[in-house]
């Protein structure tokens, strides 16, 4: 694998989630997420995990995509969500979330730095480890930012999914293609799918009940 052959997918891997998380027009954001999931599937394929690629394509791209669009109400329904997110989060709520997100990031970056620097990784580097770790960290940063910042529930679901993909990339970057890694990612994919489906169904029902698309975070809302 040449460096240039890796740079383009790695670059896209970072640009697509950014597009997904920054877009206030929700159907486009969901499409960007599906494209991102397909790219992740391609990444698993390139990393020599064809089964994981298949699972990512089916669970991550197809089914999660369907769940997200179901949440939007685009698949033939009457109670559609507004397709643009107009919510802004009140400033005073954000501090604890930001602290938590920053602590998370500092811990993750510190540990990865420590592992790479001390050469403590148990699995020898048989893959291009650095691009994976950099892409994983970047995606995780975006996911954390979006999860802490966004108010709209669908966008928080998107943020959670992106965050999960970032963690998966870090996992394979740190531990290589062990069968344990594939098992963990597979469980993670299933969990993310079920979580997305539940979240989307809930969002639809909340919207149908009283037209809300956010949690209306109260005082106890501390992350």
């Amino acid at each position, binding site marked *: 694998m040449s460096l240039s052959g890796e740079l383009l997918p790695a670059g896209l891997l970072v640009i697509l989630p950014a597009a997904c998380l920054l877009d206030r027009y929700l159907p486009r954001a969901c499409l960007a997420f599906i494209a991102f999931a397909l790219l992740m599937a391609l990444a698993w394929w390139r990393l020599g995990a064809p089964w994981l690629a298949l699972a990512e394509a089916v669970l991550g791209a197809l089914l999660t995509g369907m769940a997200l669009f179901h949440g939007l109400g685009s698949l033939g329904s009457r109670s559609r969500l507004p397709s643009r997110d107009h919510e802004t989060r009140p400033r005073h709520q954000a501090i604890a979330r930001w602290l938590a997100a920053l602590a*998370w990031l500092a*811990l*993750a970056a*510190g*540990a*990865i730095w*420590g*592992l790479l620097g*001390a050469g*403590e*990784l*148990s*699995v020898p580097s048989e893959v291009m480890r650095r691009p994976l770790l950099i892409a994983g960290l970047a995606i995780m940063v975006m996911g954390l930012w979006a*999860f802490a910042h966004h108010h709209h*529930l669908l966008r*928080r679901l998107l943020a*959670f999914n992106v*965050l*999960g993909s970032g*963690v998966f990339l*870090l*996992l394979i970057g*740190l*531990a290589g293609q*062990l*069968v*344990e*890694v594939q*098992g*963990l990612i597979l*469980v*993670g994919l299933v*969990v*993310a799918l*079920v*979580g997305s489906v*539940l*979240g989307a169904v*809930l*969002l639809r*029902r*909340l919207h149908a*009940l*009283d037209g809300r698309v956010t*949690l*209306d975070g109260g005082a*106890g*809302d*501390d*992350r």
Partner: protein
Amino acid sequence: MSAPPEASLPLEAAVLWLALLAPPLLGLVAWRFPPRRMLLVLLAGASLPLATLWLLHRVASGGLLEGTWSPGGLVLHWRLDGLAGLLLLLTQLLLLASAAHAVGHRRATALDERAFAGFWPLLGGLATALGLIWVAADLLTLYAALELMGLTAVGMMLLPGTGDALVAGMRYLLYALVGSLAWLLGVALLLGATGRLDLAGLEATTEPGAVTGIAMALLAAGLLLKAAIFPLHGWLVPVHASAFTPVSALHGALVVKASFFILIQLWQRLVPEAVAAAWLLGGLGTLAILWGGLQAWRASELKQVVAWSTVGQLGYLMLAFPLLAGTSAAVATLAWQATWLQLAGHALAKAAMFMAAGNLVLSVGQSRLADLAGTSRQLPLSLMTFGLASVTLMGLPPSAGFTAKWLLLQAAILAGQWPWVIVLVAGTLLTAAYVFRVFRCAFVEDAPRHDFRPLPAGMDLIALLLALASLALGLGAEWPLALLREGGLP
């Protein structure tokens, strides 16, 4: 920790897996044919605790049972020691009790049978998830079980379908999902550093250092969020207040404690000597005890009182960390026994308390404390159950809560860790304050109300039995403690 590879192991493994996997099947049957009688549910599930008792007997005579299974090239580990067996037994008894209570609850609230049927497969899934957590001995199984538990719990929370329940469930879902990603990142770091996932292997190969510390911090953050330990408890109270009674009973009794169980297992194996971090966790527990007690005292609705009391009582479990880290063997043994006794006693008492509170609310038709006026005459049994359950929560003799807090007190004094003594006393006083506040409201006599809804007798009976069990556990603590001693410290 001796593990004799016995010839009869396959039989025990088969019984264990049958006991773990039967509940979802029973749940599916109950989903198709919703049960209408409590006795039927109890009879259908009674074989599970019997199987576990037999397994416990085997563990007591032959020591630890363990094994592996390998789906698709993976090697997954399980182990059943005295502690795991006792927790499995406790889980099955509480699940049975809440299943029976759920039948009565559906009948009393006249909920649509089909609308409530979703409860059963979710309950089965929760049973398997909890059982797997007690016996799992590798991080992959734990991850899968933790997620299964979280998702089934969210599903059960959503059953009422009201706006409150949906919002609380959505918040719980988001927190649980993010918590599991923090956990997964911690697992990734450990796997990267050691290349293993089995607990025994991790214990042998991890070296104390920055990376292990950070991995443990991430794992702990995810688990503390799921266990609703003090600063991360925000999601718990709305969830408990809006869910069906048997669901909040199970959730407060078992689900939050499963995360604690995983945390202490990992902590003891990976960073047993991290004294400062252990004191930090103890400090969080202290804040939980004080804040939870204070909020329970200030809450205006009965179910909120019970939910805030869960936040406070979980704090006592966190005191185990400083008492186990770097202390003498005698202190550690006392703290270890106290922790599990507190967990079991609180599980029984909290389930009883939730059921009693749910029965009161259902009978009165109102959820505010002020509306309990007059219940002392009309609903003495529910109120007595509430009181018996509070005996354990307050830590009065003779109850599991008393024995547990007594052991904790001894451990704290022996170790010279005086702050925890003050915390224990303050926690007891706060608990007494909010319990007596409930009773003060219930004993108001000048309320001319006569429209109490009659409930199936079984609902009160089950709650009463659980409350009595929490007292009996205090009197007969010798048997479980002896089993714990067999296993010893991890």
